[in-house]
C-alpha cells in the first residue's frame, strides 16, 4: 500500500494524545487512593489535557487532508453499524470532548464530590468523566486498529496484533510524553509514569516483533492464477491495459526501492525501541526534562517510520493485476 502521510500523522498523533490522557488519568486515580501525590489541577491536569487535546486536534486536521471531499466529512458517521472507520469518526470527537471536559473541570476547579466510601476516599465528577474518557480512549485504539485489521485480503494487517500494536504504541508514546511533562510540572510522578512508558515500549517491541515475524512467513492467498482464473504454473502479465499511471498503480504500491524499504524498517526498530528506552532511563535517573522529551520525540519520529513501514509492507492482491505496463 502507498503510505499516506495524512494517515501516518493521524494515527501517531491521536495515539500519543490518547496515551497522554490515559497517563494523566491514571495518576489521578492513584492519587485518590493515596498511592501517588495529588497534582496541581491547573498546572498539571488542565495543562496536560490541553496538550493531549492539541495532539488530537492535529491528528484530526491531518485526517481531513486524507479526504477527497473534506466538506462532506460529517456524513462519515452514518454507517457505524458496519464500518470501523465510521466508528472511529464517532469515537474520536467524543473522546476529544471528554478530554476537554475533564481538563476544564480541573481548570475551573469545579469538581463536586459525587459519593465517597465511608469517608476514606471520594469519587468526584472529574473521576467519572475521566473513566468515560478511558473507555473512549481504548475504544478509539480498537477502532483505529480494526480499520486495518478488518480487511481480510490485506493479510499483513488482518491480525489481532494490528490492534495490539496500535494500542501499545499509543500508550508508550503517550506515557513517555507524560513522563517528560510530569518531570517539569508534576510532583513525584516521574518514576511511576516512566516505568509504565518503558514497560509499554518493551511489550510493544514483543508484539511488533511478533507481527514482523508473522508477516515474513505469510503466504499470499491470491496468486495470478486465482486472479485471472487460469491454472498454469507459468503466467505472466504482458499489458495492464494502459501505459501511464492510474489510481490503482498509485494507491497500492509504495514505490520505494527495496533498500529504502529495509532502511525504514531498521530505522523504526532503532528509533522506537532502544534509543528512547536508553534516553528515558537516563532521563528518569537524571530527572531531566530535556532527555525525557528527547526520548518522546525520538520515539515519535520512529513511530512515523513504523507507520510508513506498516503501510508499505501490506501487499494488496489487486497488485497482481498491475505488474507490467
Amino acid at each position, binding site marked *: *500500500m502507498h503510505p499516506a502521510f495524512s494517515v501516518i500523522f493521524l494515527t501517531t498523533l491521536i495515539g500519543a494524545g490518547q496515551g497522554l490522557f490515559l497517563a494523566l488519568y491514571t495518576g489521578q486515580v492513584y492519587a485518590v487512593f493515596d498511592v501517588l501525590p495529588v497534582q496541581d489541577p491547573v498546572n498539571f491536569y488542565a495543562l496536560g489535557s490541553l496538550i493531549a487535546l492539541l495532539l488530537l486536534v492535529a491528528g484530526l486536521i491531518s485526517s481531513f487532508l*486524507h*479526504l*477527497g*471531499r*473534506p466538506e*462532506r*466529512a460529517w*456524513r*462519515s*458517521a*452514518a*454507517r457505524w453499524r*458496519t*464500518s*470501523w*472507520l*465510521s466508528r472511529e*469518526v464517532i469515537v474520536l470527537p467524543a473522546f476529544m470532548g471528554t478530554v476537554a471536559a475533564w481538563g476544564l473541570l480541573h481548570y475551573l476547579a469545579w469538581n463536586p464530590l459525587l459519593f465517597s466510601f465511608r469517608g476514606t476516599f471520594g469519587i468526584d465528577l472529574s473521576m467519572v468523566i475521566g473513566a468515560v474518557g478511558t473507555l473512549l480512549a481504548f475504544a478509539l485504539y480498537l477502532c483505529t486498529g480494526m*480499520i486495518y485489521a*478488518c*480487511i*481480510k*485480503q*490485506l493479510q499483513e494487517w488482518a491480525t489481532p496484533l494490528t490492534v495490539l500494536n496500535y494500542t501499545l504504541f499509543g500508550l508508550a508514546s503517550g506515557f513517555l510524553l507524560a513522563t517528560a511533562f510530569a518531570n517539569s510540572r508534576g510532583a513525584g510522578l516521574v518514576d511511576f509514569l516512566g516505568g509504565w512508558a518503558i514497560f509499554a515500549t518493551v511489550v510493544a517491541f514483543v508484539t511488533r516483533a511478533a507481527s514482523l515475524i508473522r508477516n515474513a512467513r505469510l503466504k499470499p*492467498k*491470491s496468486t*495470478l492464477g*486465482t*486472479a*485471472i*482464473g*487460469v491454472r*498454469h504454473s*507459468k*503466467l*505472466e*502479465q*504482458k*499489458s*495492464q*491495459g*494502459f501505459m*501511464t*499511471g*492510474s*489510481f*490503482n498503480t498509485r*494507491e*497500492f504500491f509504495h514505490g520505494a526501492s527495496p533498500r529504502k524499504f529495509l532502511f525504514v524498517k531498521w530505522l523504526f526498530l532503532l528509533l522506537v525501541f532502544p534509543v528512547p528506552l536508553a534516553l528515558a532511563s537516563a532521563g528518569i535517573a537524571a530527572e531531566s526534562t530535556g532527555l525525557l522529551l528527547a526520548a518522546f520525540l525520538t520515539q515519535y519520529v520512529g513511530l512515523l517510520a513504523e507507520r510508513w513501514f506498516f503501510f508499505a509492507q501490506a501487499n*494488496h*492482491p*489487486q*497488485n497482481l*493485476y*498491475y505488474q507490467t505496463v
Partner: protein
Amino acid sequence: MTQLALVIDLNVCVGCQACVTSCKEWNTSGTAGPMADMNPFGKDPTGTFFNRVQTFEVGTYPNTETVHFPKSCLHCEDPPCVPVCPTGASYKREEDGIVLVDNDKCIGCKYCSWACPYGVRELDEHQKIMTKCTLCVDRIYDESLPENERKPACVNACPTNARLFGDVNDPESEVSAAIREQGGYQLMPEWGTKPANHYLPRRKARITIHEDELIRADNPLRKERHLPMPDADDPTLDETTSW
C-alpha cells in the same frame, strides 16, 4: 432476487479495447461522470476508467497462449467494499444487485478501494470521489432506447460478442446457461466475495485419435486378402480406383 451481471468469454475476447472506449464514452457523459482525464496531453496523463482490458501470457515460448482479460467491478453478491464505507455512499441495490457509489455522499476516503480485492474502483482525480462500473444503470432501464440497446455500453460495443449481460440468478437466462454449460468461474474465490460477474475459460476442442484409427482397417479388400497383410503404405482400393 435479481442479480444483474456480465459474463465475459475469454475464449472469444481479442483484446480490441472496444469495451474500454465505449464504456468511457457512455459514462463520462452519464450519471457517473465525468470520468476525468488529467494531463491528457502532458507528460504523465492519467484518467479514470471503469473497465480495463489486460493481457496475460500463459506458458513458456513456444507453448504459449495469450489471454486478453477485461476487468471491471464484479458486482459481488457479498461485496466487501460496501460495509466498510463510512458514509453509506457505497451500496448494493436490492432490486438488481448492482453495486453503486452515490456521488453526492462519497467523501473520497478511498477505504472501499482498499476493501475490494480486485482493484476495480478508481478515485476520480477531478471529482475527488470514488467511481466504478455502474453496469450502465442509466442505460439498461432507459425506455427511450430500442430494446436491444438496453444493455451496458461495453456489451453493445463488443465486436466478438465476448460479453453477455443478464440475471445470473435466473437459471433460464442466457448468462446462467453460459456459466453452467461452459465452465463459468469467479475471480479470487478465496475472499468469499461471491462475484456476480463470471468468466468463461479458454476452451479447446480436442479429440483423441488412436494409431489404428489412422489405418484404413475397414478396407474390405485388405481384410479379405490372405495373410500377411500388405504394407500400410501400399495403395488401397480407393486409391487405385480413384485415379
